[in-house]
């Protein structure tokens, strides 16, 4: 006979791990927040809308940071929302400072922490934490890595520091033979001449990390690809490589490829419509500006990079209650 606990736990854990609980909690919380209004147009309607918005990724708009970073899906949605809303800023060619990007982020998430933006800027500026100007795409891709993988990157930083100071990253179980060898090297002072750490050793540690890391990590295969190209590399060098790696970008799935970053024909169309409504605008101006935008509108070419993320699929699945098959593949 199966004990009730043994049966119950996987279910609950599964739901928690797939963040279904997060969304359920949030849905109820939202319902509580506005119960009078929502009860007016129907609670069933509300839940439908809520989970629809979660699927579409619009649920994170203007939400608090704790919610935005709560799930990978939320992070991806936020990245995508940021890209969609401020793509025009990048298109205009403005180079902005870290602080200004931070302001833009805050327009979508009022309590977005400065620290994250600073870290992203550091990736772009290779640790020169000065107030330099950055292009939109540089910042966006760096920010993507930093934001989406922030916990992973923190662990990576710790590992990197350990490696740099010659310590064996204690939590990582590395085959003693190889680690012993490599550990000696930086301690001998070679590191001062050769900047950074050795790539292969670094990868070993990272692979290990990926295996046991409970937060999202970049696909280990792609990390390997990044690290296989070089002998040694620095922490920021690694981050820059990550941020520029389009495979990782694709795997993450929030943003289009770098080449297509400025393309969003549906939104461009929307924008043109909005421009016509600018108060007191002379028509000729609109016409000319529209004309200038026309070439960029090639709808067929741009496949939407927005693939339905598996998390959102889970949300739908959750309602079935039959979860056993997917369970294994995810853990």
């Amino acid at each position, binding site marked *: *006979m*199966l004990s*009730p606990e043994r*049966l*119950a736990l996987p*279910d*609950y854990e599964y*739901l928690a791990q797939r963040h279904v*609980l997060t969304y*359920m*909690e*949030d849905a*109820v*919380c*939202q*319902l*509580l*927040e*506005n119960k009078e*209004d*929502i009860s007016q147009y129907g609670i069933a309607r*509300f839940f439908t*809308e*809520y989970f629809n*918005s979660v699927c579409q990724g*619009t*649920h994170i*708009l*203007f*939400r*608090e940071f704790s919610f935005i970073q709560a799930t990978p899906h939320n992070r991806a949605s936020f990245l995508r929302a940021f890209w*969609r*809303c401020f*793509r*025009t*800023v990048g298109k*205009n060619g*403005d180079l*902005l*400072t870290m*602080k*200004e990007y931070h*302001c*833009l982020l*805050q*327009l979508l998430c*009022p309590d977005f922490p400065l620290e994250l933006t600073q870290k992203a800027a550091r990736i772009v500026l290779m640790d020169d934490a000065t107030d330099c100007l950055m292009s939109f795409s540089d910042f966006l891709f760096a920010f993507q890595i930093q934001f989406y993988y922030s916990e992973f990157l923190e662990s990576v930083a710790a590992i990197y520091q350990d490696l740099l100071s010659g310590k064996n990253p204690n939590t990582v179980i590395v085959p003693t033979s190889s680690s012993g060898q490599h550990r000696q090297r930086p301690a001998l002072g070679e590191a001062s001449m050769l900047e950074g750490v050795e790539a292969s050793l670094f990868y070993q540690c990272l692979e290990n990390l990926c295996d046991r890391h409970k937060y999202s990590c970049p696909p280990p295969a792609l990390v390997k690809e990044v690290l296989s190209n070089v002998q040694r590399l620095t922490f920021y060098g690694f981050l820059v490589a990550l941020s520029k790696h389009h495979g990782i970008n694709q795997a993450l799935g929030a943003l289009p490829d770098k080449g297509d970053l400025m393309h969003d024909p549906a*939104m461009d169309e*929307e*924008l043109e*419509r*909005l*421009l016509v409504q*600018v*108060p007191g*605008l*002379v028509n000729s*101006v609109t016409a000319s*500006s529209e004309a200038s935008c026309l070439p960029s509108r090639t709808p067929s070419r741009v496949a939407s990079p927005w693939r339905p993320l598996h998390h959102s699929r889970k949300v739908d699945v959750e309602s079935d*209650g039959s979860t056993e098959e997917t369970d294994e593949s995810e853990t």
Partner: protein
Amino acid sequence: MHPASINTTRSYNDCVGQWIWERTRPEMVVSMVNCGLHLVIQTSSLPEKNKVEFKLSKDTSSFPGRLLQHDLERNYSSRQGDHVNLVSSSMPSFPILQRSSEEKILYSDRLTLERQKLTVCPIIDGEEHLRLLNFQHNFITRIQNISNLQRLIFLDLYDNQIEEISGLSTLRSLRVLLLGKNRIRKISNLENLKSLDVLDLHGNQITKIENVSHLCDLRVLNLARNLLSHVDNLNGLDSLTELNLRHNQISFVRDVDNLPCLQRLFLSFNNISSFENVSCLADSSSLSDITFDGNPIAQESWYKHTILQNMMQLRQLDMKRVTEEERRMASVVAKKEEEKKRESHKQSLLKEKKRLTINNVARKWDLQQNRVANIPTNQDRKDPDSPSQDPCPVNGSTISAFPEETGPLDSGLISALQGLSVTDTHLVEVDGDTLSLYGSGALESLDRNWSVQTAGMVTTVSFTFIEFDEIVQVLPKLKIKFPNSLHLKFKETNLVTLQQFNALAQLRRIDQLTIDPQGNPVVNFTLWKYYVLFRLSHFSMQKINGTEVTQNDMIMAERLFGILAHVASSELPQYRMISILGDARKKQFQYLLEPKGKKPGIISEENNDSKRLVGENTNRATLNYTTRDFYNEKLEEVKEKKKFCKMYIEDLVKEATEINMKNEALQKLWPQMFIELVRDAVIEIRNKNSYMKLCLQQITDQK
């Protein structure tokens, strides 16, 4: 102009000696047509001396009773000129004068040696009884040879070349001494001329008034056309009634109040520029006639009423009679002036108070902003802004016309300032159409009951040294209290992020926005202006930081942020919309919720209705700003709810999974259970007879 002649009567014993003359100087004719002198010397008090009477022929009666003096110029008629023979004397250079006995009898008391081309004074012999001696228009360089004429009363040396006053020490009876148009540099050697009545020194080169204090009988002193730079040393001239000082370079006058009899003072054409420099005149009670024309002071707007106000005793000013009306006017004007001065004093006091308060607020602000280290530099920075850094010079100049009040005023101001000692932490000021608020305390002033007029007049509101987040909280009040405010100014308000501008959208109208870069880092952003234009597009702003907003700016703003608005309005789930927009706005968005399925274009068209209502683009309304404190408060509040939700969901899910688990267990058990049940039933009915028996038994038992 007025030919005059002098008759000398022979009745010298008359107690009343009177002589009158009148003259005009050729060069003065044009400007001073009706200037003439009618000089009367009455010395009845000293009978034994008064044996002379000069009478002016009365063809001068065109100016009866009019006494006026400028440059004494005597115009003796030479009709009855003496027939004199000048014979070379035995002494080398001095001619000896002789008159026929007939002449002597006819004019025994007078001798006229006018226009005789004399270079020296001739020796006048046997004429000891002479009373009047006239040397006009000669070339005499030195006064000589007359010391024997001890009965001389009248000595006229007009238009000679005398360089020094001398040789007069024996002429103790001399009453009239005319030395006009000579080359005298210094007033001297008059010690013995104690009876002098008229002293004419006009047209010389005298630079200062001296050696006259013993002339207690002097009535007329003419020092016109000299080189005097100031007037003083007038003590002792107790009988002086007329003092002519025209055409000098006098810039200040003193001692006039020591002249008890002075009635007429002529100061025309000098260099007097303020009343302060002649203030002693106000203390002279006898003065009734004065002239200032041709001085800088006479050009001033305050000239007339200042003079009249300060010299109530005056009857004539600049040759014109002072009317009662004028006097009244003067006192009115003076009163006004006084008020103005008091007002300006108050103003400067306020100004200074304002400056100090602002400095204080700035200091507080800096402390608050952790900029303590550079406080001194901050103060330096502020000072040039303030209009009157040092109050004293400013006040000194504004009230210079009233020197007697300068002292008390200044010290009053200073003490008042010290009294301030700046404990104020905020400042509210309404200046014309501008309401200026300094320091966060000033925001409380919005709770005050402002008069409708003031409230209506204020079109510009300026915030300085106030956290923007604090300002946000009073914006609704501002909207109500100052409905006409069109121009907002922010300086040192910690505007850091773009989203802070969202808060301004709730106002009724903004035409102009001025964000001072000082203390507002947001201005350093490249996008801030566009964001403002975008977010506040419903105001159709005209100027941002003083720069005209162009249509291109508007397009650019839309181009940069239009999508944000679109996303915010069309993609925001309804439940989020509701929670973001407050209850107040909810109604206006009710319709927005309904046509969700429709195309966005239709939505924005419909929005036009609400645009009129709310005055704001609906697709932007979701971009709002809550202050950090409020936001954190809200998050805190939500945290509780979240906790509850978490527990609730946890319970719910646990329950659900439990039910599910039981269900599954049941599902697993059920087939076996069913089989068992069927088996039991089959076994029971296998023996039909015994089963029937049993059933019957049960039925009977029931009965």
